[in-house]
């Protein structure tokens, strides 16, 4: 069975081939809507969207992943913990933040299994996204390593783990159900 990404790519491939013929016969990239027969123009320009996003100020977070740690920031003055980490403390603008490690244990607050995927996730099998509350009260959203809804439950214990995401091959974190 093909992945959703392969199906999406096939859609464009068919359009390419169809409009190639149309360009040869009528001179323009004409497409007929399959249901209604109305005429459409198949875009002859393509844009590749890939962003370069600054992580300079939160670099520690990404460096700590290679030590198996998930970090957050804590406002020195108010004690508030920020996750995702941020380096400014709007409740006490003159204060600084310090880096703290998040606890590994938590409980699952909610979850969903993504069946219909975004294009850039179309190469993965169905995946579960959940939100957990860790023992220090911080909440974190991540994939949950279980895709059978019968084996998932609100309130179940989960463990935060640093994992390598394949096939891209980069470090991120995941929630792993804990056997009780």
């Amino acid at each position, binding site marked *: 069975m093909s992945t959703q990404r392969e199906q999406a790519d096939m859609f464009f491939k068919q359009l390419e081939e169809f409009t190639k013929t149309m360009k040869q016969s009528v001179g323009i990239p004409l497409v007929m809507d399959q249901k209604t027969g109305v005429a459409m123009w198949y875009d002859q320009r393509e844009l590749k969207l890939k962003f370069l996003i600054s992580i300079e100020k939160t670099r520690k977070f990404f460096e700590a992943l290679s030590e198996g740690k998930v970090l957050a920031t804590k406002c020195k003055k108010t004690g508030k913990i920020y996750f*995702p980490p941020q380096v400014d403390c709007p409740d006490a603008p003159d204060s600084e933040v310090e880096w703290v490690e998040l606890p590994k244990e938590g409980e699952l607050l*909610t979850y*969903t*299994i*993504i*069946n219909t995927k975004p294009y850039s*996730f179309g190469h993965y099998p169905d995946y579960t*996204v959940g939100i957990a509350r860790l023992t220090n009260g911080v909440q974190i959203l991540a994939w949950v390593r279980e895709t059978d809804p019968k084996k998932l439950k609100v309130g179940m214990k989960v463990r935060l783990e640093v994992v390598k995401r394949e096939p891209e091959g980069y470090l991120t974190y995941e929630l792993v159900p804990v056997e009780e």
Partner: protein
Amino acid sequence: MARRVAIIGTGHSKFGVRNDVNIAELAYESIRQAIDEAGIEPGEIDFAFVSNVGGWSSEPLPAVVALEYAGLTGVGTMRVEAACSSGSAAIKAGYDAIKSGEADIVLVLGVEKMNESPTPTVVEFIGRAGNYFWEFQNFGLTFPGYYALYATAYMAKYGATEEDLCKVAVKNHYYASLNPKAQFPRKITVEHCMQSRYIAWPLKLFDCSPITDGSAAVILASEEVAKKVTDSPVWIKAIGTASGTSNLSRRTDFTHLEAARKAAAMAYKKAGIDPENPVKYIDVAEVHDCFTIAEIMAYEDLGFAKPGEGYKLIREEQTYIGGLIPVNLSGGLKAKGHPLGATGISMAVDLSRQLLGRVEKGRQAPIKNGVALAHNIGGTGHYAYVTIYSLDKPREA
């Protein structure tokens, strides 16, 4: 001095897969109708707010493209974006412009052409509409996925079932079957909905609003202008606004939308509506049912039901005509369709026509108080707008 603001003209295109028109042609369907209805000259328009989210469609500056086509080049304009509540945000911008005295007549247009891109691309764009870097980049959430997180938590806490969610879809499809502008003007059954495939467990295909092309427009005017051109203005009585965190992980719970509660409280206060019993004041409501769970949470966030009891309203058919309060008689986002930028304006158009007794037979609410409510949410409670429309002139401007 603050001034009162009225809707003096409305326009609405057919919603659906509109491969028969480009974005400017689609916009003009509503612009033309709204100007006609208002009985004004296009040259009298002082400003045009254009609601559009875009990304999936080819024109990056839809405001000027739509205005050029409509012969309105020259008028001041801007694109307004607040995700799925962009339309209500544009109405607020127009309302503020007239209220402050900066403008007398404003065109508020919403247009969206989502079907210019294939489904996986559209799913990608809406999935990115939360916190891209922390919640999409690694975890690939989708828009159904965000609301599914709420559905799971809500059902676990209060005991609502997937059948209860499907009942919202059944109601909204029923009313869409009476609305010729709807994308899916046909009835469905609970079985039909329950048998549809999962999109983001526990939400199924029939729990989800579709990918829609569409436009809607209103002409707003000051009291002075409204008095001259119409004997049936619909007044904007109050607007409540709020926002929620970009990261879902920073929300306090997943059974309600805090931003919607805040926006409702603000709107009720401004309109003099008792927040303990709003249904006593409101004849009809359009709420943001991008997913069936969203309509159930809306009942609670708006105070139509107590927290945890929203699903009982639909179970007992209290949001049909004749019940406690009729909701989404247009078919809602679910079955009328959800062209993001047009949705909030579509709500304003349909509610204006409801208040004036102008909608199709079978989906016309009895109008007793002359008050209607629009609840329009952007993202997953990232933006919230609650707008109160009324037949009676607001006491204060």
